[in-house]
């Protein structure tokens, strides 16, 4: 992360509800037709042979392998961790995933399973997915996840507050969760990284998504994330492209680099490669690593492994040759 300047740029923006509102509403508008056309055009890039092999391994290494179900058990989480550590038991050259993403009560299980492997523990928090709890509950949820060993916290914003125009409230809530990501007294570990989930499907307009992106980045998000995966519209190419443009502009304005995580609905290698093409042509090399771009996904991994297998052997082996976890 770039070191913060002594006088943070845009500091005055969050001085009051009015100034924050003026700033967010002063951001350039988004033309939906043009945005979607650009995303569709990038989707036509043809990624073959060596480029495809590179993209598949990169995509695997960017996955936050996720299980967020009411039916999650320690066994299920441990199984997912094993998968993340060694995605293809028949081919040890397959990279490990970036993180295992679970509910807070499973964070300790994941932590124990992953140990010092380098695969991180990501935990959703703040009354995920709806976020409809009081702030103290959300903060307790966050501290709980951090104490259980989460390296990364995926919080949800209060879409109700955002949609009714209480931007400063959303901002302050993100700040508070960020504070809660700091390790308990005595720990030397860095604070958990904060991913801020907008739930683009509920924000509904592209203008809102751009505003939410800036709002979250101003509040200190390490990552901005499209969605929970729990509503009808999750990550799409256009809404992710818009967020890529926002992190690009934010770095140009402040010098601070922020990561992006599309989540929900990305199931095939073809889809994943389209996202990587967008990152490549919008942000370039600086964001082409798991440190700055993630996929929130579960079934994507097996498709990537099947494609990887096909590239290396020339044959498509089918779903019985990857592990079901």
């Amino acid at each position, binding site marked *: 992360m770039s070191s913060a300047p002594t006088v943070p740029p845009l500091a005055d923006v969050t001085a009051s509800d009015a100034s924050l509102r003026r700033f967010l509403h002063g951001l350039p508008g*988004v033309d939906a037709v043009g945005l979607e056309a650009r995303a569709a055009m990038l989707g036509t890039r*043809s*990624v073959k042979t060596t480029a495809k092999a590179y993209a598949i391994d*990169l995509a695997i*290494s960017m996955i936050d392998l996720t299980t967020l179900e009411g039916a999650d058990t320690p066994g299920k989480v441990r199984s997912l961790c094993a998968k993340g550590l060694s995605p293809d038991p028949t081919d040890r050259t397959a*990279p490990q995933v970036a993180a295992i993403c679970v509910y807070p009560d499973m964070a300790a299980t994941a932590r124990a399973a992953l140990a010092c*492997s380098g695969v991180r523990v990501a935990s959703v928090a703040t009354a995920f997915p709806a976020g409809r709890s009081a702030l103290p509950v959300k903060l307790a949820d966050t501290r709980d996840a951090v104490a259980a060993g989460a390296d990364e916290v995926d919080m949800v914003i209060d879409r109700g507050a955002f949609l009714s125009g209480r931007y400063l409230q959303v901002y302050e809530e993100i700040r508070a969760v960020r504070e809660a990501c700091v390790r308990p007294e005595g720990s030397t570990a860095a604070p958990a990284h904060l991913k801020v989930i907008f739930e683009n499907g509920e924000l509904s307009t592209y203008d809102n998504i751009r505003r939410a992106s800036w709002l979250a980045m101003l509040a200190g998000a390490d990552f901005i994330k499209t969605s929970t995966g729990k509503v009808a519209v999750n990550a799409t190419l256009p809404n992710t492209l818009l967020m890529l443009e926002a992190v690009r502009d934010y770095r140009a304005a402040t010098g601070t680099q922020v990561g992006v995580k599309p989540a929900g609905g990305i199931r095939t290698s073809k889809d994943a490669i389209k996202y990587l093409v967008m990152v490549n042509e919008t942000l370039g*090399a600086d964001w082409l690593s798991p440190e700055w771009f993630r996929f929130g996904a579960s079934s994507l991994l097996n498709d990537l492994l099947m494609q990887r297998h096909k590239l290396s052997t020339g044959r498509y082996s089918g779903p019985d040759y990857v592990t079901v976890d």
Partner: protein
Amino acid sequence: MASDTTQPHPHPHPAPEPDPFSPFAYAPAPESRAIVDIAPSYGHFIDGEFREASDGRVFKTIAPASEEVLSEVAQASTEDVDAAVRAARKAFTGWAALPGSERAKYLFRIARIIQERSRELAVLETLDNGKPIRETRDADLPLVAAHFFYYAGWADKLPYAGYGADPRPLGVAGQVIPWNFPLMMLAWKIAPALATGNTVVLKPAETTPLSALFFADICRQAGLPKGVVNIITGDGSSGAALVEHEGVDKVAFTGSTAVGKMIARTVAGTRKKLTLELGGKGANIVFDDAPVDQAVEGIVNGIYFNQGQVCCAGSRLLVQESVQEEVLDALKRRLTTLRVGDPLDKNTDVGAINSAAQLARITELTEAGEAEGAERWSPSCELPTAGYWFAPTVFTNVTQAHRIAREEIFGPVLSVLSFRTPDEAVAKANNTPYGLSAGIWTEKGSRILQVAQQLRAGVVWSNTFNKFDPTSPFGGYQESGFGREGGRHGLEAYLDV
């Protein structure tokens, strides 16, 4: 993200290391040439069959991306033109007498065959023209098929088009088309002519004759009656002979303003009906409340689409001074990602210039731009050594007095001018002898309407650029020509009204 990964990293294969220069270089993804079978030579398509030039003269057509000779085609003499016009005349009576619903069947059939053969035609067009396969595949061919489908729909509804209860065709249409969108311009000419009951003699441009000759084959495949469509190939002299021919009732031309003026003089005082679609110097106007990222895409699409060889290109960028720097920075950043090179590679954005002559014209005008004091910028890009290439170029510090602000360059060259108020934007946009296209970029709907009403341009796009649709009339003001192609309006040029 701060790093707290001080732990050992035992896994043998961590994330692939990005190469700082080219972390995600797309491997070559060439579309296969094998799908298209180009004969070593072609004759004219007259009266339903291919025949050699009457005097045996031929010329070569080359691939501008490599200068490779693709084929040899016949050079039409006045006898060839005469034979073609006679064939069209002979076929006219029967074709015009067919019920509209019968003519529609042929047009629908042609449209479907174009769709079926679209990959082949896209590769052919890319080879002969030099434009990227992404454009022929995703823009040209879908629009070509759509145009035939659209006018097929009109063929049996002419009484309801607003031109009287039984509008009559004109007769034989002599059509001369340019090299920038060979097959699309053919569709714009032939589809409305056939739908209204005319027969045609069409001459494709000298540098891009092949797709029209393949279209001739499609006419045969569709069982179109002999002589309804005739294709002759040749240079400007063949085009002149066609325009001058006594048996032609209607002349339709798309091309340069200079040639358009010659044609207008030739046709003046005759019974021939004329439509001209000529050059342009389109203004793309970006206001300070524009959606910047999409405006940048629109600017790129406006002037680098088809290497800027587009009559309605947004070759003048008029940007409000208060956002000039921001827009130009974003534009330059975007241009560094344009992929220039092999037109057959599916990832190519900018292909080859169509001919040596056109390249010379672009080079001459850009040199004039520099000499007159404008500031020239191009992204660093490696251009192939063989073939005709010109890097995407932006000129800043351009004033209304510069040649590059007034003359049509017809290449990937953008001239950037600024304005302070909407009135100034309109005045500068209109300050041209042309008047084909313009673009308005603003999030404010009322401004779009207010500015569009004042612009003297046949097509005004708002928050988009270079969007085409067969249902939408297209054409110019002033020296950009007259008459409309496309839509209901496009029927008028081929009806005796």
